[in-house]
């Protein structure tokens, strides 16, 4: 359902052109949980940005379901991000002045859902991550694990096609990391496609499939090798 073929991406660095992604091919099926690993500078963040429609690419094709993601206007990009993709970030990226329930409800604001309705839905999702009691607390009053669970609830509220997680356990201790990873596993078990970027092997091990990037190339993909 998600297919990248011969994706190439360059960055201009001064007079030079940095070739960040080289002919990346990738296919992720519905309901898969995939980990993308790679050293710093391997291009894994760039790949995640392209997958999340936060960044464009220079050559190749990116299909998300039946939609070709290419040459979108900012407004179209925003709409696809809102409808098709859920984001979870390393630094949580919650709005500090909003309560947990307001943070979770935010994506629905951009779908024009009424405040009452979206807060009601947001409360259900907070309940799913076990934080219904924390609905009216602000992020500053929560632990890292709690914040990340709020962020996960926020990523799920629009019922996206995929959830993209960028180093979701990077700021958490190992015990909390395990809890968060368990939450991802539970979400994946409901049929949600999850793609996470990490450099921690034990986190990647929780995913069904691990793709290794090196110097902008897919170095190791069990499925591609099998195919």
């Amino acid at each position, binding site marked *: 359902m998600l297919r990248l073929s011969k994706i190439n991406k360059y960055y201009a660095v001064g007079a030079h052109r940095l070739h960040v992604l080289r002919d990346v091919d990738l296919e992720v099926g519905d309901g898969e949980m995939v980990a993308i690993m790679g050293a710093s500078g391997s291009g894994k963040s760039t790949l995640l*940005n392209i997958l*999340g429609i*936060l*960044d464009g690419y220079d050559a190749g094709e990116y299909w998300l379901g039946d939609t070709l993601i290419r040459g979108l206007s*900012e*407004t179209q990009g*925003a*709409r696809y*991000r*809102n*409808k098709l993709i859920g*984001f979870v*970030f*390393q*630094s949580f*990226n*919650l*709005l500090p*002045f909003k309560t947990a329930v307001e943070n979770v409800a*935010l*994506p629905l*604001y*951009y*779908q024009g859902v*009424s*405040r009452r309705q979206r807060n009601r839905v947001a409360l259900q999702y907070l309940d799913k991550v076990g934080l219904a009691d924390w609905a009216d607390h602000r992020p500053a009053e929560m632990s890292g694990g709690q914040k990340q669970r709020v962020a996960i609830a*926020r990523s799920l509220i*629009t019922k996206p096609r995929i959830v993209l997680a960028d180093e979701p356990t990077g700021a958490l201790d190992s015990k909390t990391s395990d809890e968060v990873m368990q939450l991802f596993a539970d979400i994946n078990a409901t049929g949600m496609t999850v793609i996470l970027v990490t450099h921690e092997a034990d986190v990647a091990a929780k995913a069904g499939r691990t793709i290794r990037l090196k110097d902008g190339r897919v170095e190791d993909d069990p499925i591609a090798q099998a195919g």
Partner: protein
Amino acid sequence: MFSLDRWQEVLSTLARAPLRSILTAFAVAWGIFMLVFLLGMGHGLRKGAETQFADDAANSVWVFGGTTSQPYQGLPVGRRLTFSNADYANLRHLDGVERLTGRYFPGSGGRPFGGSLKVRVGAKTQDFDLRAVHPDHLYLEKTLVKAGRYINQADLDEKRKAAVIGIPVAQFFWGSTDVIGRSLEIGGVSFDVVGVFDDEGGDDGELQMIYVPVTTAQLAWNGADRLNALLFTVGDKGVAETNQLLDEVKATLAERMRFNPADPQAIRVRNNLEQYATFQQIFWLIELFVTAMGAATIVAGVIGVANIMLITVKERTKEIGIRKALGAPPLSIVGAIMQESIFLTAVAGYLGLIAGVGALTLISKVVPDNDFFGEPQIDLRLALYANVVLVVAGAVAGFFPAYQAARVSPIEAMKDR
């Protein structure tokens, strides 16, 4: 497009930095306050000066006989010129002369200005100024008849002993203004009161006055056919046309009285229209100046708002990035910033407007009535302009920060710093 949600977002953003919001708002409020206050004061000055002119018709020209300074057709220098009924009749036929009246001052002893006569009712006696006039004098002096009527053509034709008296005159003799039909003795001649008047913009001097028909006065006080002054209005003519008409008037007078029309001393002229035009110009300049000052103050306020909004956008870069990642379209970001800016300027501006109007009201209450300053206020039209200016100013102030916000890249914004 009204959206309660959007408003809640905007209000909560402003409330997050209350001191900054208030200080920013103050800059705008101050600008509008200054604009309103200065314009109101300018208006007051103008009103004050206008009352000085309101006494007499602004489009009027007064001519008085002078003394010749140039020999003409063999006649010597230094002749005193006095108008007569014939001059009145000649000017009547001039095109462009709208309202025309002569003035004869029975009590002046031949001088071209006022003069009083002894007036008696029963045992009460007092000197009052007397003017013998034609019916059109009503319009030249902007006399307001409060009771009865003014001098009319029948009074002149029949040389009736009719008098129109000022309110203070009626009050002095009878302690009332309900005095139509009463008699009074003016300079030994008995007259009947046919009207009581007030005077627009007139001071007490204009009201301590008695008007009588010019023909009656000429007969009663040995005036023959003399007139001391001729006054006329020129309709809606401009300054240039009025001066042209004045030349014709001089030529007409010169023909009968035989003086050089170019003689600057022969006829003395008071051209109210020209004075009024000069005065209008001065006040137009004052208002222009005041408006420019007020506008400059508003511009300073707007720049202040834009500046603060830019800082706000800078501070909120991360928030904007997160919102974009979660699917906020650029228009929504731009709209929110613009709305914030317009809201801030509009509310602050209204407060400034109210404060300005309040200050003007206070001043008009505190400053006593006088001839140089009156009714400091701004008209509704100007208040509406100010509203438009405020919204436009808010939009302008918000545009660049909003543009800046729309360009925020979510990837860059969300990077940990």
